[in-house]
């Protein structure tokens, strides 16, 4: 009887683990099957898809045929999310240090719950605020149309803040208290302790947080779409409008019939997103592995 | 030697590539208190944990040799681990009562082994708590959380919890090292009382404690058993130079 319940438990939980694995594989397989049909069924060369800015999926054959180059979308996604991380990462690390080292009372009582709330604000609401506040502000004070790379990455940088902060706080928390005490006992100032002892030791956790934040920014759809203007051109400045992979998918998916080249190329963009977020995971793994080896 | 409760022969224990125990041979007599002493890292706790197969939980542990409990090998594949641990109970270094009431802590063992009768449970709880010399202190707060008790009381709850499953052998891993002197005295008294009914093996850092309560003392060093003898002999006429050095405080 005892042995049976133990076996059941083991079978059930292993089953749940297998379900999770199967689900992930199913997602990858389904998206890949749909996404690859652009290349396999429609015969679009991968090179043209990735490295061309010609996006004319509706153009008839006699005028140069449908063309589905997604370079502008891809660059747009990369630019916006990288800039978001550039803004968000230093701010997040400062917050994490504040929470753990500078003012633990205020940090843990006020700042950390506040940041958790940021994580819970729906992306639609972020987009809505960006559209109502940020876009007019940029247009009036900085010039341009307001719909811009700037608006996009500012909104994103707030959205990914909680991801980076919580990872950084966790990795700072995991450090042995003794290290800090030892550093203080040797006469280091607080900043020296943080800079020389704590931050380097927590580095891999922080980098993991930053990469996950980057992944989140890269995959965000609705909030970004509302503020970037969606212009299919590679932006020349941060005040220019831009377009991303995610916004192209949300805008066109419903209007294109399943199975057409147009729809297929949107699925290919989905596959591209999937592929890049897997790439981010590999980067994280690499960082963690390297830091484990160096320790 | 046929009157041994536990008989260990050529026990080797490897932790991945590291050999933690090297050829231990020891006989444990029933209704006796056996103390295991030795410096940190000498393998005494590891040895203790291999007696009820707690080491199986640790990744990368490999065991060679035999451990016989009343003549049958506890590492044979036919052994029901659950039944083994029911017979060979363990008290840990730090008190670790569950996040439950005192009553539920003590009733935990009987319950998981299928006892549902409320009257019977009440009885077991009372007997066990009396056995652990705690009944009078907690009878009024049986249904409050065990974490509200003092450290010494918590440790006695853990002992009562163990007694409730009626084991033969009690393994104690430095049971009083996390307690203050007064609680320590109480635990020691309790252990001496328990000797009448149980076979007790206790790991301790405290040599006075070993001298005070045990009948037999075994001295471990670097994963080997240096010597094992009557406690009095070990502390007065050790047979090995290393034992003498250790008990006189020259190292460790």
């Amino acid at each position, binding site marked *: 009887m005892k042995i049976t319940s133990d076996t059941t438990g083991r079978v059930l939980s292993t089953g749940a683990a297998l379900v999770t694995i199967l689900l992930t594989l199913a997602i990858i397989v389904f998206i890949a099957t749909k996404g690859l049909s652009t290349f396999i069924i429609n015969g679009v060369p991968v090179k043209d898809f990735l490295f061309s800015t010609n996006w004319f999926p509706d153009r008839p054959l006699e005028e140069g045929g449908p063309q589905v180059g997604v370079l502008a979308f891809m660059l747009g996604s990369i630019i916006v999310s990288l800039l978001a991380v550039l803004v968000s990462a230093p701010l997040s690390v400062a917050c994490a240090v504040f929470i753990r080292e500078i003012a633990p009372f205020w940090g843990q009582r006020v700042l950390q719950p506040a940041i958790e709330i940021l994580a819970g604000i729906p992306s639609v609401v972020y987009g809505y605020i960006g559209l109502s506040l940020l876009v007019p502000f940029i247009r009036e004070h900085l010039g341009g149309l307001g719909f811009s790379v700037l608006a996009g990455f500012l909104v994103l940088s707030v959205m990914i803040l909680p991801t980076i902060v919580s990872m950084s706080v966790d990795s700072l928390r995991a450090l042995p208290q003794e290290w800090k005490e030892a550093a203080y006992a040797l006469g280091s100032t607080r900043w*020296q302790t943080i800079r020389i002892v704590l931050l380097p030791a927590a580095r891999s956790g922080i980098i993991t947080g930053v990469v996950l934040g980057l992944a989140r920014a890269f995959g965000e759809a609705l909030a970004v779409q509302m503020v970037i203007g969606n212009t299919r051109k590679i932006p020349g400045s941060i005040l220019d409008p831009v377009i991303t992979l995610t916004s192209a998918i949300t805008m066109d998916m419903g209007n294109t019939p399943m199975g057409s080249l147009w729809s297929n190329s949107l699925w290919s963009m989905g596959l591209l997103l999937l592929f890049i977020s897997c790439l981010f995971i590999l980067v994280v793994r690499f960082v963690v592995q390297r830091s484990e080896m160096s320790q | 030697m046929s009157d041994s409760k536990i008989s260990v022969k050529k026990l080797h224990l490897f932790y991945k590539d590291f050999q933690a125990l090297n050829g231990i041979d020891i006989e444990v007599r029933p209704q006796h208190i056996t103390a295991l002493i030795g410096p940190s890292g000498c393998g005494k706790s590891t040895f203790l944990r291999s007696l009820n197969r707690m080491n199986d939980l640790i990744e990368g542990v490999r065991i060679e040799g035999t451990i016989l409990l009343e003549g049958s090998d506890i590492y044979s594949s036919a052994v029901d681990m659950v039944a083994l641990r029911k017979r060979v109970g363990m008290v840990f270094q730090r008190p*670790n009562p569950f996040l439950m009431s005192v009553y539920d802590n003590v009733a935990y063992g009987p319950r998981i082994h299928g006892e549902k009768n409320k009257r019977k449970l009440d009885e077991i709880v009372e007997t066990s708590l009396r056995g652990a010399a705690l009944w009078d202190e907690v009878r009024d707060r049986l249904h409050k959380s065990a974490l509200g008790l003092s450290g010494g009381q918590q440790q006695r709850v853990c002992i009562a919890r163990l007694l409730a499953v009626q084991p033969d052998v009690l393994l104690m891993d430095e049971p009083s090292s996390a307690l203050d002197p007064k609680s320590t005295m109480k635990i020691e008294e309790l252990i001496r009382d328990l000797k009448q009914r149980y076979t007790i093996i206790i790991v301790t850092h405290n040599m006075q404690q070993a001298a005070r309560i045990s009948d037999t003392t075994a001295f471990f060093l670097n994963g080997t058993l240096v010597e094992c003898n009557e406690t009095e002999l070990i502390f007065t006429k050790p047979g090995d130079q290393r034992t003498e050095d250790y008990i006189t405080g020259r190292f460790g």
Partner: protein
Amino acid sequence: MKARSADKLATAIIWAGALIVIAVLASIIGYILFNGGKSISWDFLTKPAQVIHSGGGIGPQIFNSFYLLALSMLITIPVGLLGGIYLAEYARPSKLTGGLRLCIETLNSLPSIVIGLFGLLVFVNMTGWGYTLMSGALALTVINLPLIVRYTEEALQSVPASLREASLALGASHWQTIVKVVLPGAFPGLVSGFIITSGRVFGEAAALLFTAGMSSPALDFSQWNIFNSSSPLNPFRPAETLAVHIWKVNTEGLIPDLRRVADGSAAVLILIVLGFNLLARWLGHRIYRHMTAT
């Protein structure tokens, strides 16, 4: 002296960083609550939405959001809990464990729009259900699952190993130990983890656009037969959640008072998410205190 002033400067910069974040948060929440707060009324919270006329409410949308959340949690919690138990208790370094961890990380970083596409393909088209609550709930499950597994694993690992050993040393089986000792010990962590996850998916919209749909058919709140197609409980009807409603009103709204509806909905959404967070903290704290009786 130089180290001293560097210390002061760094402290000041870090304070400034923290203050910026608090200011941003305060202005976001303040803006939404200030603008939306005035449109929140009992009528607004209970009446159905309007398509052309002004004066619509968000009653069905609020109901849909909660119902969808409950449906998805019903699926996610058992699977996620067991998956977390596997990782925390049974997993030995093996191919399966490594694969599982990689899968969870992958799921966790998948853009929600990709999950929406997957849902469209499998839950909407292949099953033939169309845009339904069930399709949406399954898509949310995909988003939820890695979070729940991670929270469960963390909560279980925070239970001291000594309690596990104590239980095993009493002759309890591994599963008995998990059910009777480890899970209760992890309960406060589990509860707050689940509630925080709920808050996150409550605001999810991108994945739902393609799965639960953007339409909210008339609901008959006196019909509680789950199989009746006009019943609010029927999981095979399309449903628009609050977050999707905000998106729709902003993009396609024909109603003259769309600002009011959008602002009000955003405020309600934020208040609910805020409520989830506070509930998680309070409940976790309370359960912990109750269990330790300190």
